[in-house]
């Protein structure tokens, strides 16, 4: 009967350890969502849709924050952290640009954002 408390203690300890070691995850879903949002952003800027483009850019900024956090925890990926930060900042700039109707500049920024994604994929995208 004494084995039960020991097992329970070990199980609790394992769960606690797991919680401590838990790292942010970055699955394919997140990357797919970023790709979808990026395409939607490009379209909404071209259509001069302030509201929708702003929403897309805000969502992208949030998702790039997740990517940045993931690579910070992963370690040994300074370049990826930097690229994710750049992408987050570009997204934030686009939010401000579309809010003031500066769609041409926003298009340029969105294109730079897409290139930043590609640069990161060159090194970090898994086959």
């Amino acid at each position, binding site marked *: 009967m004494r084995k039960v408390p020991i097992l329970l203690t070990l199980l609790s300890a394992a769960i606690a350890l797991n919680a401590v070691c838990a790292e942010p995850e970055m699955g394919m879903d997140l990357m797919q969502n970023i790709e979808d949002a990026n*395409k939607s952003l*490009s379209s909404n800027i071209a*259509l001069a849709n302030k509201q929708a483009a702003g929403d897309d850019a805000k969502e992208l900024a949030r998702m790039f924050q997740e990517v940045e956090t993931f690579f910070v925890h992963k370690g040994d990926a300074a370049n990826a952290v930097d690229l994710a930060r750049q992408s987050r900042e570009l997204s934030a700039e686009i939010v401000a640009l579309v809010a003031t109707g500066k769609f041409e500049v926003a298009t340029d920024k969105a*294109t730079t954002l897409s290139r930043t994604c590609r640069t990161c994929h060159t*090194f970090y995208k898994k086959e």
Partner: protein
Amino acid sequence: MCFNSRRDFLLKSGLGMGAAAVTGLLPGGGLLQGAMAAELVDPLAPKAPHFPAKVKSVIWLHMNGAPSTLDLFDYKPDLIKLAGQDVPASFLKGIKTSTQGGVGKLYASKREWKQHGQSGHWFSDLVPNLATQSDKIAFIKSSVTVGATHDISILKLNTGDLSPGRPSLGAWVSYALGSANPDLPPYVVLYNGKNEPSAGSVNWNSGFLPAVYQGTAFRPGPSPIFYLERPELRTEGQQHASLDLLRKLNQKNADRYPSDTELKARLRSYDLADRMQVSAPAAVDLSKESDATKELYGINDETSSSYGTTLLRARRLVERGVRFIQVVSGAPDGQTEITSWDAHNDLEKNHSVNARMIDKPIAGLLADLESRGLLESTLVVWTSEFGRTSYGQSGNGRDHNPWGYTQWVAGGGIKAGYTHGATDEIGLQVANKDQAVDTYDLHATVLQLLGLDHLKTTFLNNGRSERPTVVYGKVIKELLA
């Protein structure tokens, strides 16, 4: 305003709409935007560019199978020095080399290299004729793409995507500029060899754009389009009587339903097909070309004859106002073993045949365009789906290389003699990633020279605004004169 009858009202409204459409064609004028107004009348009507164009036509030379530009244009003394050794780890950083056969030893072919012209561009002994045109060429030595199978990377080269469904660059050009010659399609695909290019018509289709903008494949031989010729059993008079009746019936319906653009497109297709029965064979008929011209294009040489014929046809199409001519390299006549540039083994033999096939014809094309005053209004693009590795494969071949290879451009608006970017010391990767030129950048630059802003060349597809460069693309300003 008073209208006497419903018919009168429709007539005057129609004339008003026509006038609006015409004014829409004037740069910066009109009630409607150029493209929109023109489409109301005819989807292939000429449309105003966004800004003055540097060129009127593009000849897009696709080297099918991916040549090793390391053996043609990208001279790498260090590769020759290090040949036979393992690739130093530092050169492999950041790339995935699992395309086919793993990483072999560094490989150098037995080439002789020389600088040519005032530009000092390097050319190998495989392309001696092209070397004479050195000062017309601007090299892009920092080309990158997505490396996959040939068909997938060819699709990216032509449409910007790895999956079928997007319009090819030529289709975007047709959509944005319309046709400059009502008797010929604005977008023509040419190829040499017996078979249509293996990657297929998906590389010249119109994707989500209306089908009228897709490329028309001209096959080799005197009758370039399938089923274009009138059947022998039918006289010319019978055909015209039949077409006239069809036109009248269609026109009646078109009058009843003026907004039916599909019907208008169909009417135009019948008329275009009728006119093309004369104009298409005439466009590719070389019988009136001089012997000297044929010699210039290498038509008298067995290996370069079919490709030379194709390029001479391309020049004739440029003269006739065709906007975009996509030329896919095939196999020389009589050659069954080597059908593309894809030299995974025996690169020496493969590239000797292929270089001989294209060298004189392309040099001849550039010289001919210049002598006729057409080079300044034509853009020639020498391109491929990817390059080939500096490490060897199968002992004497090279694998696919999407990380750093060479393409070139020549013609109107181009800074001739310039070299953009570079590969590393062994020619494996782009040396400076900031100068990397992806497919989208090349497309954006081609469009720019045609007077089109790639960011403003848009089409609404299922509620989404699409553009030729997807979400990418940067004009390579350094290439522009």
